[in-house]
């Protein structure tokens, strides 16, 4: 076990912190960098709550080591709207009640930000994300709204 210095550019800001070589990126973000928006629902790559963008690509940050992210670019849920206006996807999730407890939401918000403009199908976005609260109904309504459909029928 050893400690290494990890430098990442996270949500546009360069951050340098020490990390154990066994520390996951999820834990590093949450504990080392105090970005607790990224949630750990399983730690085994099954739920998608911890999804962040690593060099622009979605990854489960519970399956990536912090040291593997050294020198790379990371986007987390906190960076999606920055401190300012919500994105269309975030607004759609709110309006269509696409979350309840919100524990799964950060990964989904990151995934939707990644999919925005790429025209992936609803199934592409939802694959790899578990939500225990919504039955996916409100999330689907939000996705329909984003793809120009009517959104919810409620």
């Amino acid at each position, binding site marked *: 076990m050893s400690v290494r210095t990890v430098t990442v550019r996270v949500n546009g800001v360069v951050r340098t912190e020490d990390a154990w070589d066994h520390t996951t990126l999820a834990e590093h973000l949450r504990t080392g960098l105090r970005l607790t928006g990224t949630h750990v629902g399983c730690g*085994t790559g*099954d739920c998608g709550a911890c999804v962040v963008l690593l060099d622009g690509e979605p990854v489960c940050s519970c399956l990536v080591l912090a040291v593997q992210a050294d020198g790379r670019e990371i986007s987390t849920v906190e960076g999606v709207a920055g401190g300012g206006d919500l994105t269309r996807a975030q607004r759609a999730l709110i309006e269509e009640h696409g979350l309840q407890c919100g524990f799964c939401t950060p990964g989904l918000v990151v995934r939707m930000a990644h999919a925005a403009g790429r025209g992936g199908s609803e*199934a592409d976005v939802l694959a790899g994300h578990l939500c225990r609260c919504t039955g996916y109904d409100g999330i689907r309504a939000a996705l329909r709204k984003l793809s120009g459909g009517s959104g919810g029928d409620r």
Partner: protein
Amino acid sequence: MSGAHQHIGRPVPPRHHDRLVRGHGRFLADLRAAGVLYATLVRSPLAHARIVGFDASAARSDPRCALVLGPDDLAERTAPIPTAWRLPGQPEDRIPIAAHTARYAGQPLGIVVADTPTAAEDLAEAVRLDLDPLPPAATLADALAEHAPPIVPGAAGNEAGSIRLGSPEEDVAAAFARAELVVEREFTLPRVNPSPLEPRGVLAEYDPGTGLLTVHAGSQSPHSMRQDLCAVLGMRADRVRVIAPDIGGSFGSKVVLYPDEAMVCAAAVALGAAVRWVESRAENFDGAYQGRGQRTTARLAVGHEGRFLAFDAHILADLGAYATQAGSGPHQVTALTLQGPYHVDAAAATVTGVYTTRVPTGAYRGYGMQEAAFIRERLIEEAARELDVPALELRLRNLIRPEELPHTTHTGLTYDSGDYGAALRRAATLAERPPPSDPPWVRRGTAVVAAVEITAFAPSALLETFGIAWSGWEGVRLRINHDGTVTAYSGVIAVGQGIETSLAQIAAEGLGVPLDWVRVELGDTDTAPHSDLSAQASRALTLAGGALLIAARRLADRMRTLAAGFLGTDPDRVTQRIGSRADPSSPDAAFHGTDGARITWREVAHRGYRGWGNRKDTDRIRLEEAVDFDPPQITFAHGAHAAEVTVDVGTGRVTVTGYWAVHDSGVLVNPLIAHGQIAGGIAQGLGQALSEEARADAEGVPVTRSFREYAVPAAQDVPEDLVIEHTCTPSTAIPGGFKGLGEGGTLLPPAAVTCAVAAAVPEIAHTLTSLPLTPSRVRAALRAAGITAEGGLR
């Protein structure tokens, strides 16, 4: 007279969503604490064993170690957790924290505290357990076998007591003697994991200077957690404070104090420090109390022209290693609700609790009512098949009609209001559609089923009758602040359901003010009114909301009276006019006299705070109302669900191709939230119908320990076009006419899906008595009936 806001009934997006989509939630693992230490539990790897040794010397000598508490240390520092709802004859009335025998794999035996999470994990592994294995009894059959190992020391056998609820024996016997048809089946409802996406966790901080223990916990019921902690740690109630932060789902699995949580608190007290424990997903599968776990023999007697005569059941309830605080409660609710929305001459059920060497079972969304609905609706569907009448017609013939309400069931439940037939007919109509042409190996079927749902679990006197050591009432405090804004305090908890928004809507409605003037404050036992049951049993909105409506109306009257005093007129000559976007000090948020005089809402609040104005000695000063609401009776919601399924007779795979739900939860405060609750409940119910089962190996060691082995529904498992409708029969017991809806969605999917499979493949209908309907289980039934993709087509 009041501001015409009508917040009740508006589909307002919940207010907590904004911060959560930004990643600004404050869940347990997110909370900061200075100098916090980290805990890992030492858990039994065996399902049943005597603990001969707990050697922590290696861990204790490690410089990273802060504390280790083993069974002997825990015995000195803790008392067992008292239980609240027991079966007659139950041999144990407390839940041991210090264990000298492990009774399930995953049981916490000790706790290790260190300066980092990794160190705590390493050191927990360094504890050397010396276990003397005892034979496991992982199933009901094993536990009830003749030479089964006794799980509770000193008890005769593994039965945990028994209770019979419902009609007298002679009435049941007479009804069955009159029957033209008796349908009897044995049903198995397996153990399931509630699986909230956020596992459990505790951050406990003890300040030796003040003697205060502050516990942050993802608890659905902080007040009951505090009471249990006082009993366990021997502490005074005024020294223990429990605070619930954001909670990532709960579904019943976070309602009571667990032994591992108590150990974390005991460690914090021992250390005089802050200690955090966050459960891993595997621990949640092993150690969080599971739902269901029941094997039931049940029968339905049918008389002339398909009239239902009686239900009778014997429920074997798998309580697990010990009876939790509510113990057999869910199974007793199965017995209580078996009759459902139908007339019968008699209905009764026996619940026998059974100890097994598995993690205890406890509350899970649906709480016995889902089991009752499955058993009842399956029996009815089987009766219809045997009588060769359409099941819908049979149901409609036997339903309790709206004009027959209130109606008291054979288990003493008085249904207040509802139109069961309207919901059933509507669900059936929604599900009508021309069948598409399926390939020859696909069978398709539809079914529609119904249930009545206990909501707003209260009154306190009812709990007393059942011998449940909890209260059922709910209290609120509502305050108008000096600037005219409003704060509401309630003992119910936000678990993602959006209760803080619904309660704000109710308060704003009662006061006639804009929604954003109202903040709802929940979750801290130091400020929240007492609540034992809090956010469970579909009661938060109904009971806290009912109380809040009363408080808001009172406060609105007091504001008007104050305003009248300042305006020098009578209260009934004062009009409150508040614009929907006004703030409390703006001129369009004012009380108006008849002569053109006006005073703003804020000014009234401000002067009220000064104690100004004409006031009698007996008038209250503070602009605050506290209301305790204990309703006269339970209020009953109801619903009907229809499912359409396809069965691939080659693979046995069942696909839900359509799902329609009609619910009646009285007056809906927020239709958006109501829809979300029902949709989420349906998804969980579909999981239980088709994929979820908490399994253990022959030794009783869990084998479903991740989302790979335990399949909670993913998006593709829930139909895209769920149809959810609401009818409205206002509650007669709750101010505002509200009924609960937190569990309703969960009650019917297993029954609806299974009955639809029976309709699709009637040849195997009589075997469809066990959940989940996995492809292998269905395939086995198909093969046993001689049906294959190639040969067995109709």
